[in-house]
């Protein structure tokens, strides 16, 4: 639709966290898929109500943790067994119990780095500008207002019909968001 070319989506503003949960659920049931909600704190169940998939962060962290641990042990083994072996009273070179603390620390370190980097990457941050920032009142999305944005790329999006639908959700305010 030509009229929608310059529109990112339609944004509805709600005044509390229970309303946004209900709104997200009815929008999903109404058939909208390309949408997102913006809230000042994590609202439990919101992402499920919007039909979003589970987070991939745990998988990334698990993989990074395993590689960090294996890599840490390999580093110690290579350094103290292969590259620079030191015979201390005939004790075994691959003295694994003594290698555990650093293996453990490096497991945690890699997993933690993966958690933050993975979280930012999955969220596509840093992203200094985004169309929703231009929506009226949007600065309150980080204080006390809850927003639901149905994006224009949604196959079911139609400016008038979607606006009518949003009105049935009883929001405080509805606005168009430019691209």
């Amino acid at each position, binding site marked *: 639709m030509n009229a929608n070319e310059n529109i990112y989506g339609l944004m509805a503003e709600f005044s509390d966290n229970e309303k946004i949960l209900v709104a997200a659920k009815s929008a999903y049931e109404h058939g909208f898929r390309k949408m997102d909600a913006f809230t000042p*704190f994590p609202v439990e169940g919101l992402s499920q109500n919007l039909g979003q998939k589970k987070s991939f962060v*745990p998988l990334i962290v698990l993989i990074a943790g395993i590689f960090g641990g294996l890599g840490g042990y390999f580093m110690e083994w290579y350094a103290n067994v292969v590259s620079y072996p030191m015979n201390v009273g005939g004790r075994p070179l691959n003295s694994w119990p003594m290698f555990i603390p650093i293996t453990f620390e490096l497991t945690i*370190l890699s997993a933690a780095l993966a958690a933050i980097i993975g*979280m930012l990457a999955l*969220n596509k941050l840093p992203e200094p500008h985004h169309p929703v920032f231009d929506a009226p009142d949007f600065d309150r999305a980080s204080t006390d207002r809850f927003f639901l944005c149905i994006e224009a790329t949604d196959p079911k999006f139609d400016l008038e019909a979607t606006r009518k639908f949003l009105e049935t959700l009883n929001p405080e305010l509805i606005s168009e968001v430019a691209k």
Partner: protein
Amino acid sequence: MEFFNWFSGFSFVSSDVSTPHPGPLPVEGRGRKFAATFIHRINPMSEFVQSPAIARDEPVNAISPLGYPSQLIAPGESFESVTEEIGSIVLQPGARQPKSWWFGALVAFALLMLFFFAISYLLYRGVGIWGINIPVAWGFAIVNFVWWIGIGHAGTFISAILLLLHQKWRTSINRLTEAMTLFAVACAGTFPLLHLGRPWVFFWLFPYPDTMGLWPQFRSPLVWDVFAVSTYFIVSLIFWYAGLIPDVATLRDRAPSRVKKIIFGILALGWRGSAKHWQNHQSAYLLLAGLATPLVLSVHSVVSLDFAVAMVPGWHSTIFPPYFVAGAIYSGFAMVLNIVIPIRKLYGLENLITERHLNNMAVVMLATGMMVAYGYIMEAFMSWYSGDIFEQYMMANRAFGPYGWIFWALMLMNVLIPQLLWVRRVRTHPLALFFVALVINAGMWVERFVIVVVSLHRDFTPSAWGMYRPTFWDWATLFGSVGLFLTLMILFVRFLPMIAISETRKIVAERREGKLS
């Protein structure tokens, strides 16, 4: 009206009834292109009608039926009011920063200069300016290191372990204590480096393929320490920053000036609080808490192994790891209280950091203090029970030797005085609690002195015995490191939100739904 705060003494909250949304500037005045073409305000009066505040009858210092303070935050707080209370400290420093901030900054900065002075002279002359020698080669540097790193443990304990245990009261204090952890670990990290003698080659501690063809000896607890402490610092930093992102986004949206908007905008990385963002964020945050939990227990265990793996009487003991961890949390909570109590008073945050928080922290301190006391008893018992004359002599020397008075001061400060915490009035009386915490902090420093110096000064052969006397430079470095810590802390409370705003909003929502008291 919704902003009228029934129980608070702040004028900025209650006097602002005429402008119900005092925070951000009006949309038109924000200096960016207004992109919306259509605005349909369905319920223009809703801001006035939708009162988020539920005024309850209980005051902020209400007591539960079991006799404990029960309020997590003051009744009547709303999303807007908590955001304003915390955010305005950073955004309207003129109105919210107390005059005493400057006094604190002055003291902290003077001590920091002392630290730089002491370090400069150390780099110029070498570690001989300290009182260390053989047999006491570890001296203040290691005492201070262990003390600071122990203080750093409360932050992660509060942030991570209490998060996993669903202790909601952590919310008001976790940000402050995480910052405290970072700064304490930064202070701790300087001491082993300075103690190296040639700090400029500190990177030899890290494994890298160097031209000397050497590798670190990974079987040594001293190398474990390098990994444990640097991992701890990095993970604490990540955890702190991950929690900070949504809050700096709030500050970005409310910033009154363009410069602040840009700085907080950069720090916020474009956070917009989308459901997808929150989902990944919460997942990462919980995982970080899960990772930090074993980490925090491992760090002081590794530090204790620096001692326990050695053969020196008074060090060579299997009780050290748990006993060090308990001591770390003990001193960490004492430092949290020493910081939180003045801040709560000076910034008027009694509505967010309530008596319940003070009481809970005091209870944790009492519990860990008992564990530490048990450690003291076990050390004494095991030295007798071992039948080893060197161990037995170590204990006798500790209590009745030349440093005996320090041992008894330790018992007074770490075992006897904290028993005052059994009294509820002490636990909820900020001033009394502040002094008990101060005594415990000093006591924990003395404990490390007893462990490091008193154990070393008389080990096996009397001909190798000696005394240790700290010099001016030892004291200057110790107090100077306090200056570094205070400077970082005082800058933190000035420039970043000291309470997790988004988490506090969640508490407000949960209270409203009746999930919390």
